[in-house]
Each structure stands twice: as structure tokens, then as C-alpha cells.
């Protein structure tokens, strides 16, 4: 379903969940990667995957402790592609209610707790259909309203000038993917979302913003 572009993909490892599934997806798609918690090891890669599970404030602390926050800022400034996944999609924004904590501020916006209520469980865990809000190379070849696997309690609210890629519904309709310049994000786990998810990963790895 793919072929390597000859590039090397960096995966940020900062004790934010298990990254085995991200590595397995890259292996399956035929790409080379470096998984590291060292900015030095990652700074010369061609693009970054910024995964994450867990708590936003803890994730920020772990990033800073390793100098990976500066790596992400530098990478974005140099115009190299970055894909934020799950908590990685949240902490590229200015701040999060989870903590609360200041975040990386790579994109204007904030992160809020899902309201739940009316029998709705939070975390929002399981498969949900994503409505693509625009045509974009990142979603090429993926059917509209495909389902993806979510595990999260907070949702992203990017500023009005940020391009929204997709939304879903869990009590409220909220943004689950956005892009600005060379940075793109998915709130769900594309690496655990079957063939549609793998296609999104493949599209990112070939993205020329």
C-alpha cells in the first residue's frame, strides 16, 4: 500500500504511552524511522511524529525535561512536517485545561474537557466516524465519514484561522484534526484505526506542504 520515500521519520519518545504501534505502522508502510528521546538524535530527521497518551501537564513536563519542546519549535520554524497524535495534537496549542498547563503554542488555540453528560462516557473511547471538513492531501483516498479509534477526555479548539481537517460528535461536535503550515494533527490514533488510519499515516509521510 506504500513505498518508502527514502526519508527518515523521527518519533518522539517522552514516556507518553506505548509507541510500539506507531513503529509497527511505519514498518508495515515501509518507512525508516528513529525512535528517540534525544533532540540530537532527532534534529536531522526529515519529519516528526509526535505521539502521546496521558496527561497534558505531565506530557509538557516530560517534553521540557528532555529539551524536546525546543526541538518541536525548531522543527516547525524550519518548515519540516510534524504530525501530532492524541495528546500530541493537544499540546501543540497554546494551553490545556488538563492541569491546567501552558503548552507549546505552535498553533493558536486551547484544549477543553469533554462535557459528557446524558449517559455519555468520558473518556471518549472507541470508534467514531470523522467528517472531513475540507479536501486535503492528508486525507486523499480515505472515504468521507470513515471511523477511527479514539481514547481521550479533552478536545482541541484551535483558533478560527486554523484549517480544520475533521470533526466528530460525542455530545458536542468538536475538531479532531487540523493543519497549519507544516504541522498537522489527529486526535484519534491513526496507527490503531485499521486501513483508513494507515492511509492517513502514509499520506502524512508523503505530504509536501
Amino acid at each position, binding site marked *: 500500500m506504500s513505498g518508502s520515500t527514502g526519508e527518515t521519520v523521527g518519533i518522539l519518545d517522552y514516556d507518553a504511552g506505548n509507541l510500539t504501534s506507531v513503529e509497527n505502522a511505519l514498518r508495515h508502510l515501509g518507512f525508516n524511522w528513529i525512535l528517540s528521546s534525544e533532540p540530537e538524535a532527532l534534529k536531522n530527521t526529515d519529519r516528526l511524529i509526535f505521539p502521546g497518551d496521558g496527561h497534558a501537564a505531565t506530557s509538557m513536563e516530560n517534553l521540557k525535561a528532555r529539551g524536546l519542546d525546543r526541538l518541536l519549535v525548531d522543527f516547525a520554524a524550519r518548515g519540516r512536517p510534524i504530525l501530532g497524535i492524541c495528546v500530541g495534537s493537544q499540546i501543540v496549542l497554546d494551553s490545556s485545561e488538563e492541569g491546567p498547563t501552558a503548552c507549546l503554542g505552535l498553533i493558536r488555540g486551547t484544549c477543553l474537557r469533554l462535557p459528557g453528560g446524558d449517559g455519555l462516557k468520558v473518556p471518549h473511547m472507541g470508534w467514531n466516524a470523522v467528517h472531513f471538513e475540507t479536501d486535503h492531501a492528508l486525507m486523499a483516498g480515505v472515504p468521507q465519514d470513515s471511523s477511527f479509534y*479514539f481514547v481521550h477526555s479533552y478536545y482541541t479548539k484551535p483558533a478560527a484561522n486554523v484549517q480544520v481537517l475533521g470533526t466528530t460528535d460525542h455530545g458536542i461536535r468538536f475538531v479532531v484534526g487540523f493543519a497549519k503550515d507544516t504541522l498537522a494533527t489527529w486526535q484519534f490514533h491513526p496507527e490503531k484505526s485499521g486501513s483508513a488510519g494507515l492511509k492517513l499515516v502514509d499520506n502524512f509521510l508523503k505530504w509536501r506542504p
Partner: protein
Amino acid sequence: MLQKRVVVCLDVKEGRTTKGIQFQNNIDLGDPVEMAEAYYRQGVDELVFYDITASAEKRGIMIDVVRRVAERIFIPFCVGGGLTTAEDIKAVILAGAEKVSLNSQAVKNPELIRQGAKMYGSQSIVLAIDAKKDASMPCGYRVVINGGRTLTELDVLAWARRGHELGAGEIVLNSIDADGTKAGYELTITKLIGEALPIPVVASGGAGTPEHLRAVLQEGRADAALVASMVHYGTYSLAQIKDYLADHNVPVRR
């Protein structure tokens, strides 16, 4: 809208899939990795592997199965059976499982739930409860362990609440009475747990027809339904089950 999950369960003994009725008379069903891949292609939402290997020295086989499954399927899957320490949980998660399922060992050592949740987050820790109807218990159901052979003094609802407080992110509720009967899920206790707890409940035990899944996902308020023999023997395909659910207004992934 969040979709209801259809979860396929594979009992794995020394690296082979087996199926027994009420934990007895196990028969060989095939290679769990190949079966997992086939169900993945057919659109299963999640898989559960229960390691029922008896001897401790052969448990390493399961880690190899988990690793190979993770390399070939790209949906969440859960592994249970024989996990007694935090190290056991770590080994399974690092091999590529999204979740671990704790059952008898959580009853014997509830701290294991807390330790697992602290290491990998609540979303990775599933508390599996074997429930047996018992009018002498407050909620009407007693927790049993060791595959139903040992009665505990725990009430199912109280134990589910405790498990959630300790950090479990999901409950698999298995009815020992219904398991293997193909006569339908136990709706009463499933609904009670699903309404009492703020975390997802996976119904297990008794699935024989797509209508059984519909009933437990609607009337039983379950978030997911676990199936085994009805798909292992080819009685129904996953597509048939999901078509039936969709036709009856159950939101499912297609």
C-alpha cells in the same frame, strides 16, 4: 456518535486458539495470529486474547503471539490471563497490546490495577469480572474466579466500583451462567454495571445470534459485545452481525 464495538475473543493455550464450554473440553481452532489477521480484514473492532496456558514456563509463547499480532493488525487489542505482576503487564504492553485484562489476579491483588493504571493509564487496564447469579449477594451476582471454580465473597457491582476507583478504564462483564450456552447475554447485571459506572462495559458470555448482541447493546446498555464461537465456527460472519446491528439502529463501524 460513538459506535458500539464488536469484540472477538480468542482463548489461547500454548500458542494455539482453543474454545471450551464453561472452561472445559478445549478444542483446537487454529493459529491465533492468522485468525486475528482474518478478523481484522473482516472489520472486527477489537480483539481479546485470553492466555489459558496452564504452565508458567510456557507463558513466554504468549508474548511472541502478542508481538506477531501487533505487527500485522492495526486496531486495539487486549491480552489477559496469567498476568500476576506489574512486570507481566509491562511485557504484554511493550509487545504491542493496547490493553491488559485482569481477572482473578486483580481479586487476589487489587493493587495490580492501580500499578497498571499508573504505568500505562486507565485506558490500558481492563477489569474482567466473572459473574455468577446469586440471590444472597446485594446486587444479585457474585464474583467468581479461577475460571468459575472458586467463589469469592465479592459482590459484582461493589467490585466493579472498586476496580474503577483503583484505575480500571473498562469492565468486561462475563456471565458464568450464560458462557458457552449461546442463549444470549445476561442483560440484568450488564445493564446494572453499565448504568452505575462511568467507564465502558463489554458484555461477555452467551452470544449465539446477532439479536443477542443487539439486545445487550441496546437493552443491556453495553458499550461493546464480545463474541467467540458464533464467529469461530463460521455460524455468522462479522459482516452479518454488523449489518444486523446497523439495520436495528445500533451505531457500528462499517
